[in-house]
C-alpha cells in the first residue's frame, strides 16, 4: 500500500503541519552529477536481487496465470487454448455462486464488526490505562495467531459439539449443537474468528488517536462539548484516514481468507458448502480437480473483484476521508 496516510502532526501544538501547505513548484532539476549517477547505478545493483525476485517469482507467475486462465490446463498435459470458455463457465457454476455468497457475507459482516471493535478498544486504551503496553500486546496477539493452522484447529474444538462454548452453555442449561458443523452457524464461527483478530487495526487506530492534537479537545471542552460530541466531531473526522486505511486493508485481506476455512472444514468448504470461501473453491478446482486453467480464471476474477472494491473505496474516500488541513 503506497497510500498510507502519514500523520506528520505530533502532539506539539506549535509545530507547523508540513502537509498543510502544498509544496511550492519544484525548480527544474539540474543535470545529475556524475556522483549521483554512479550512486544511482549502485542503488539499482543493490536492488537487483529484489527486482529479479519480483519479476521471476511474482510478476512472471501472475502473467502466466492470466494466460492459463484462457486455457484448459490439467497440470499433467500442456495447456490447450479455450478462449473465454472458462469465464463463460462461471455464469452457470452454482458452486462458484455459493462461494461468492459466502465470501461477500463474510467480508461485509466481519470487516465492520472487526473495525468497530478495534476502534472501541483503541479509544478505551488511549484514555490512559495503566499498563497500556501489556494490554496492547495482549490484544495484538490474536492478529499474529489468527491466520494460523493451530488457531483454526483450536476453533474447531471450541465450537465443536463437546467444545468449550457448549460446555459454557450447558452450565446455564442450554443444549448447544456443534457450531462449526452446522451449515447455519459454521460461517458465523469464522466471522467471530476474524473479528477476534482485531489487534492489528487496533494498534493502527491507537497510533492514529495519539496523533490527534489535544488542543482540539481542550478547545471543545471550553466550548462545553461533551464526551460524545468530542468523539463524533473531533476524533472520528481526524481519524478518517486511519479508518480508511484499515478498511481497505481488511477488505483485501478478508477476500483472501483461506487457511481458517480450509482447516475448519477439512478442505471441503462444508458443512454443505457453508464455508466455501472463494479462495477455497479456487484451490479445489485447481488442485482437487486438475482444472488449473479454470482456477486461474477464478483467481483473476477475484483480483478484479478486489481491485473493484479498492477502487470504489478510494473514490468514496473523497467524500468522507478528511486529510487534516
Amino acid at each position, binding site marked *: 500500500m503506497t497510500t498510507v496516510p502519514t500523520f506528520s502532526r505530533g502532539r506539539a501544538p506549535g509545530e507547523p503541519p508540513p502537509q498543510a501547505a502544498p509544496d511550492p513548484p519544484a525548480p527544474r532539476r539540474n543535470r545529475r552529477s556524475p556522483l549521483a549517477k554512479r550512486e544511482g547505478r549502485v542503488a539499482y545493483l543493490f536492488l*537487483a*536481487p529484489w527486482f529479479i525476485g519480483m519479476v521471476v517469482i511474482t510478476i512472471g507467475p501472475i502473467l502466466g496465470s492470466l494466460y492459463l486462465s484462457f486455457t484448459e490446463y490439467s497440470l*499433467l498435459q500442456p495447456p490447450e487454448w479455450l478462449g473465454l470458455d472458462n469465464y463463460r463457465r462461471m455464469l452457470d457454476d452454482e458452486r462458484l455462486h455459493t462461494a461468492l455468497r459466502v465470501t461477500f457475507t463474510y467480508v461485509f459482516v466481519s470487516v465492520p464488526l472487526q473495525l468497530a471493535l478495534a476502534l472501541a478498544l483503541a479509544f478505551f486504551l488511549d484514555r490512559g490505562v495503566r499498563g497500556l503496553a501489556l494490554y496492547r500486546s495482549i490484544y495484538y496477539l490474536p492478529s499474529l495467531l489468527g491466520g494460523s493452522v493451530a488457531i483454526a484447529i483450536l476453533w474447531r474444538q471450541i465450537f465443536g459439539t463437546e467444545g468449550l462454548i457448549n460446555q459454557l452453555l450447558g452450565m446455564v442449561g442450554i443444549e448447544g449443537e*456443534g457450531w462449526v458443523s*452446522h451449515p447455519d452457524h459454521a460461517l458465523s464461527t469464522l466471522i467471530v474468528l476474524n473479528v477476534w483478530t482485531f489487534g492489528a487495526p487496533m494498534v493502527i487506530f491507537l497510533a492514529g488517536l495519539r496523533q490527534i492534537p489535544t488542543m482540539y479537545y481542550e478547545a471543545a471542552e471550553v466550548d462545553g462539548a461533551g464526551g460524545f460530541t468530542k468523539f463524533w466531531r473531533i476524533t472520528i473526522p481526524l481519524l478518517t484516514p486511519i479508518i480508511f486505511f484499515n478498511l481497505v486493508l481488511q477488505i483485501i485481506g478478508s477476500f483472501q481468507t483461506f487457511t481458517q476455512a480450509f482447516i475448519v472444514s*477439512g478442505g471441503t468448504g*462444508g*458443512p454443505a458448502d457453508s464455508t466455501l470461501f472463494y479462495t477455497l473453491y479456487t484451490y*479445489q478446482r485447481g*488442485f482437487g480437480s486438475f482444472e488449473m486453467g479454470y482456477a486461474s480464471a477464478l483467481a483473476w476474477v477475484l483480483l478484479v473483484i478486489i481491485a473493484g472494491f479498492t477502487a470504489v473505496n478510494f473514490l468514496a474516500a473523497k467524500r468522507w476521508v478528511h486529510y487534516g488541513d
Partner: protein
Amino acid sequence: MRTPRVLAVAVPVAALLAACGGGDTTGGDGDVVELRYAFWGSDDRAQMTQEMIDAFEAENPDIRVEIDYADFGAYFDKLATSVAAGDAPDIMTMGGAYHSEYAGRGALLDLGEVDDIIRTDDIGDDILAHGTIDGSLYAIPTGVNGYAMVANPAVFAAAGLELPDDTTWTWDDFAQLCTQIGTALGEEGYGAQDLTNHNTLALWARQHGEQLYTEDGELGLSAGTLTEWWEFSLELRDSGCTPPATRTEELASQSAPEQTLIGTNTGGMALVWSNVLEALSTASGEELRLLIPPGVEGGEPGSWLGPSMYYTISARTEHPEEAARLVDFMLNEPAAAESFLTDRGLPVNTEVRDAIVPQLTPVQQAEAEYLDRLQEVVGEPVPPAPVGSTETAGIVTRLNSEVLFDRMTPGGAAEQALAEIGTALDR
C-alpha cells in the same frame, strides 16, 4: 577507497543467482542411478519404506533410491505440482482413481514396456484389472483391501447384544441392531457412524444390480437407487442408529482413528476399509471384528476385493528399467513384504502373502482372515475408476450433508449428485 563498489555488490548477487540455480542431482560418478519414490503416509510408513529400500539397495548397488513422502492431504497436491513442473518422481504411489487421472493424461509409463522386469504371474488377473486402463497396464496394486463393517464387541456387550451372523444379514437386520444399540447407549454413544460415502454407494449399487461406474467409465447408478439409499440413511438418523447431522459432520471432517466413534468406543459399527483395522484397534483398545457388509434380501452380495494403493512409474522417467526393478522388488520379494507387512494392504503376490502370514500380529491376521472370508462372497470385479471420478467423494459428502440437515430431499440430492458426477466424468 578505490575498490570498485560494483564488484562488492556483483559478487553477492552472483552468489544468490547461483544458489537459485539448484544442484544437479544426477551425479555422474560410478554409474549409480538415482530414483525418487513418492508415497503418502506417516513417519512409521516412511521408516518401513526406508528399511525396504536398504534391502533393495544392498541387492542393487547400482541404484540409489530417495524417498519423497507427505501426508495424505498434501500428497496429491504436491504430486500434481511436481508432475506439472516436469519433476515427477520416478515411482509414484497412487490411490482411489488417481492412477486413472494420471494415466488418462499421459503421465504414467505403460508397464507393458517393462513387463520383462516386473513379474506379475503370481498376481490375480482381477487385481491387475484395476490398474488396466484402455487395455494397458499402468498401475499395479500394492495390496488388497476389502470394504467391511467393523464392529466393536464391547459396545455390543454394553447394549446386551450379540454380534450378527454376517453371512446372512441384511440392511434391515443392520438397522434393527444399530437402533437397539443406539437406544441402549442413550447419551453414551450411537449404533453406527453415518455410512454414506462413495464406497458405500458402490456397494449399494452392486447389491441392486447396478454399478457406480460402468466398464466404459460412465455413471451406472440410477437416481432411484441413490434416492433409496438416502431415504434409508435418514431412517437410520431418525431412529437413533446414527448420530445427528452436526455430529456426523464433525466426524466426517476428521479422519484420525482416535476420533472416530469406533476408536473412542462410542459407536457399535462403521463401514471401513479392512487395512484400517489395526489403527482402529490401537485407538479403541478393544478386539474389533470385521464383518461382511449387510446385503439386500435376495440381492447380490456386492462386495469386492479392491486395491489399497498402486505402484506407478512416471512416463517421463529417465530410468524406466531401474524404476521397474524397484516396483518388482516391492511386489515380489519377501524381503520387501517383511518390511511392509500389511501396511500397503495384504500383499497381492500370493506366495509373498503366505510367506509373511506367520509374522503378522493378531490384528493383522484377523484382517487377513477377513479377506479370505470375503473372497468367498465377492461378485464381479469392480471396473477401474474412470478419469474424473476423484471428484465423486467430495460431491457425495457434500450432498450427504444437505440431506442429513434436511436442506435437500433424498430425491433432489440424488438427481444433483448424479448430474455433478456425470459432469466431472465428462470433463
